[in-house]
């Protein structure tokens, strides 16, 4: 009997494809976000409002994942930007290969921004890197404010938490302060925005966050040349 040490990720094949996607995105200056939440938290509505705010010439595209139907793609296609539905046919998450296949028919170099709406599920999508620059998790106030503690992985791996449906706050026992604290207990550096994609409250903050991150990403890839050493 022989034991061979194997220090590698279980999802190394997914990570390999995700790394290739990330390199392609960086090479072509595409900023990519992966949106995660439980079903019904408002990902599609937030994307509708986001697309609505863009000028026609904006080079943005959307991939949207669901187990069945192309309902979301039809909702999102109304804004005139390229949209593709990924129907997983049962799988509870998107993986990097699905994204790679969905992108095959598009010229990535013609894009500046790629928004990926994952399958509605607060657990499984967190395990799969899609090559994105950042994950954004939505939590609606119709859910519980303890969700970050119950489903830590997705909050741990997301850069931004959007507390959505804040227009419902007067009608639900959701404690915003507790939700913020719970999210920070899981992930100290997570940024948090309060939004109602339906009423429009907080959407300006979301657009500012998106633009700031896009600007930072455009600056970041170019390595700063070392300053010449001047002597004498």
């Amino acid at each position, binding site marked *: 009997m022989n034991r061979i040490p*194997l220090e590698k990720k279980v999802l190394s094949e997914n990570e390999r494809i995700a790394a290739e996607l990330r390199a392609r995105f960086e090479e072509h200056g595409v900023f990519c976000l992966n949106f995660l939440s439980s079903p019904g938290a408002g990902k599609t509505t937030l994307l509708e409002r986001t697309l609505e705010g863009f000028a026609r010439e904006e080079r943005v595209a959307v991939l949207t994942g669901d187990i069945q139907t192309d309902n979301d793609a039809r909702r999102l296609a109304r804004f005139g930007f390229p949209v593709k539905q990924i129907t997983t046919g049962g799988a509870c998450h998107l993986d990097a290969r699905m994204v790679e296949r969905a992108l095959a028919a598009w010229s990535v170099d013609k894009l500046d921004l790629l928004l990926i709406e994952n399958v509605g599920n607060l657990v499984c999508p967190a395990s799969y890197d899609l090559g994105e620059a950042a994950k954004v998790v939505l939590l609606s106030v119709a859910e519980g404010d303890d969700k970050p503690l119950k489903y*830590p992985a*997705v909050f*741990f791996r997301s850069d931004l938490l959007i507390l959505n449906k804040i227009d419902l706050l007067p009608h639900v026992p959701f404690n915003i302060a507790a939700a913020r604290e719970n999210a920070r207990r899981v992930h100290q550096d997570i940024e948090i925005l309060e939004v109602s994609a339906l009423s429009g409250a907080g959407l300006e903050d979301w657009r500012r966050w998106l633009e700031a991150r896009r600007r930072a990403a455009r600056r970041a890839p170019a390595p700063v040349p070392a300053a010449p050493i001047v002597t004498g």
Partner: protein
Amino acid sequence: MHELAIANSILEAARAEAVRRPGARLLRVGVRVGELSGVEPEALSFSFEALVSGSDLEPLALEIETCPRRQCCPECGRVFRVVDYEVACPDCGAAETRCISGDELEMVYLELEGL
């Protein structure tokens, strides 16, 4: 419920290693699962057994080492295990500490016979 897909990835990786070693038979595979990984060890074991049962890989076994979340304090250097999401440093009380482990999902070893 993605544990079935994760179990399948473990089997594929194990198979790929076995193919490189003709004549060897896989006995056991060891993985490391962090408590922040979003993977439920019991569901992973169940899925793994379901996939192996009746296949050519039988009786391949899975050993799961679960890894707690650990933080490091930038003030005093203390490394501590996080219980109930309490991330403040238990020694010096610093509120801001850095997560250094707990989201692992890694293959650790393979046991084979006839190598």
